């Protein structure tokens, strides 16, 4: 898979981030579950408290014979029923026993309010068994909830340890991935650039992938190839020039930018040198054969111009001397 350098750097951290988020979500779920169990424990305690409160209020109602006590009993029961409903669809098996107990307590209250005291006393006795049943049931469920909370706490600690190890391992893996995907290719590019800077254009630059480092290596490869072609050309043209051959030219089609300008100037230099030397050779050959008609034309700069001026001046002096000699010979 081809990835840009940015993606290569971001991807491992993104993966690490996702992993950490996933692990945190699991921890959060653990915590929610623990909170739920703790809430159930609180609810169970409150239900137990409500059961005691109902019993106390019924007794107060019997003693005070106030109908208003029924309102308080109903409010307490309503709160307890809501708490039981929170424990689950069946309120952990407490729903029906609580309703039966509440109904029985209310019945006792009403029986006393109707002055059916003997019946009321009988029913009160029967209620003790129901109370004990609910009480035992609540105690058992609270113990189970405490055990569950302790188990979840232990699991949460273990999981936190695992999370720490996994995160550390992932950090190591991310470092390796970044090292292999980013640092190592950068080091390779640095070594290539240093070799070129040191004048070594013979190295082979391996280019694979399409990230920014690959693009840099590809640019270095092109630059190395262009420099090599230019230097080989210059070496060839200079070598031939030293052997008096100024006919060689650099191929400017393979060059670009500064290299192309340099190649054009070198071609221009060898061209001017060749043309100048050719003109000097032509005029001196003619002079040697006594032909004074030849001269160097054109517009040569610098030392070539001075040579042109010297040769042409020398040729004019020879021509004038020859004319004087011819005139003197005619006069004699």
């Amino acid at each position, binding site marked *: 898979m081809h990835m840009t350098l940015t993606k290569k750097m971001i991807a491992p951290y993104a993966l690490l981030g996702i992993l950490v988020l996933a692990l945190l979500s699991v921890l959060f779920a653990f915590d929610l579950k623990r909170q739920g169990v703790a809430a159930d424990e609180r609810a169970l305690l409150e239900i137990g408290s409500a059961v005691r409160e109902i019993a106390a209020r019924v007794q107060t109602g019997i003693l005070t014979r106030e109908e208003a006590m029924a309102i308080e009993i109903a*409010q307490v029961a309503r709160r307890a029923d809501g708490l039981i409903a929170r424990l689950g669809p069946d309120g952990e098996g407490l729903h029906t026993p609580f309703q039966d107990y509440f109904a029985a307590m209310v019945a006792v209250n009403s029986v006393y309010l109707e002055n059916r005291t003997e019946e009321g006393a009988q029913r009160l006795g029967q209620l003790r068994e129901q109370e004990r049943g609910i009480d035992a049931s609540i105690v058992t469920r609270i113990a189970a909830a405490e055990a569950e909370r302790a188990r979840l706490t232990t699991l949460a600690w273990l999981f936190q340890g695992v999370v720490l190890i996994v995160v550390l391992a992932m950090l190591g893996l991310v470092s390796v991935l970044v090292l292999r995907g980013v640092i190592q290719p950068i080091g390779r590019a640095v070594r290539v650039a240093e070799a070129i800077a040191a004048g070594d254009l013979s190295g082979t630059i391996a280019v694979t992938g399409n990230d920014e480092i690959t693009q840099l290596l590809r640019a270095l490869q092109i630059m190395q190839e262009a420099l090599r072609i230019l230097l080989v050309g210059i070496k060839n043209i200079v070598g031939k020039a030293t052997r008096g051959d100024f006919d060689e030219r650099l191929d400017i089609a393979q060059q670009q930018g500064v290299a192309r300008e340099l190649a054009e100037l070198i071609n221009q230099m060898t061209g001017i040198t060749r043309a100048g030397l050719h003109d000097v050779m032509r005029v001196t050959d003619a002079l040697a054969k006594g032909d004074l008609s030849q001269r160097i034309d054109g517009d040569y700069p610098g030392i070539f111009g001075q040579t042109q001026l010297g040769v042409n001046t020398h040729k004019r002096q020879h021509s004038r001397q020859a004319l004087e000699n011819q005139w003197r010979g005619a006069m004699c």
Partner: protein
Amino acid sequence: MRITNSFAFHLTRVVALTFAAPLVWALDISGASTVQPVVERLIPLFTQHGGEAVQLAGGGSGAGVKNTLAGTSQIGMVSRELKASEQTELKNTVIAMDALAIIVNQDNPLTQLTKSQLIELYTGKITNWSALGGPDLAVVRVTKEVGRSTIELFEHFTGLQSPDREQTDKPLITKDAYVIGSNLESLTLVGGLPGAIGYVSVGTARAMAEAGLPVKVLTLDGVEPSDAAIRERRYPIVRPLNLVYREATPTVAAFLALALSGEGQAVVKLLGFLPVGDR
């Protein structure tokens, strides 16, 4: 954990107080729990006006008729029309009009019921309030014990029958319903259990709801049990509140006169019943 640490202590006190009460009464009144709160408030007025000590007990309309016929009570409280057989042996004075209210817990969003829905709820066909567009909550039915006029009215209206009666071809009220005695018991149970439904005296229901009991009265077949609807008998379950007696002794006559007086009818109105002067 102990549920009631001093439960036995309180129980002993209750029993002791009960047996320490006066043993001789000039007037013994017993019967319907619906009428009981009215009589309970009339007793102090009766003694203030020179009346003698009164013993009051509930037990239902059936008990009121039975005790009066047996002579153990001088006045019986009956919250229904008197049967033909009873009319031959007992005299009666209607002191108020009442209706049977269908009540649910205040948390229940339901506001009305039809007769057929009421029947389906009490036969156990509907077990969850969600079937009637309410919350996902199991229906807890509260019915009354046989001998109470309230259940007789309910049975008459719905065509159902208590499973505690001798079996006929009538459909039965489901056996898992809580069977209670007094109106207060029914109201407390419905107020304490969000999924509960019950039927009680509308006067008692109104009075207790106003006092803060978390119950509400439903509209039945589109009619609210208002005073006007009861008076005009548009509400489907209306009943008279009677005081029955065998002999109008001076004490009995004085008590009946008090019940029909302005003071007595004010008590009737205060408790949410329809005074007979308004009929």
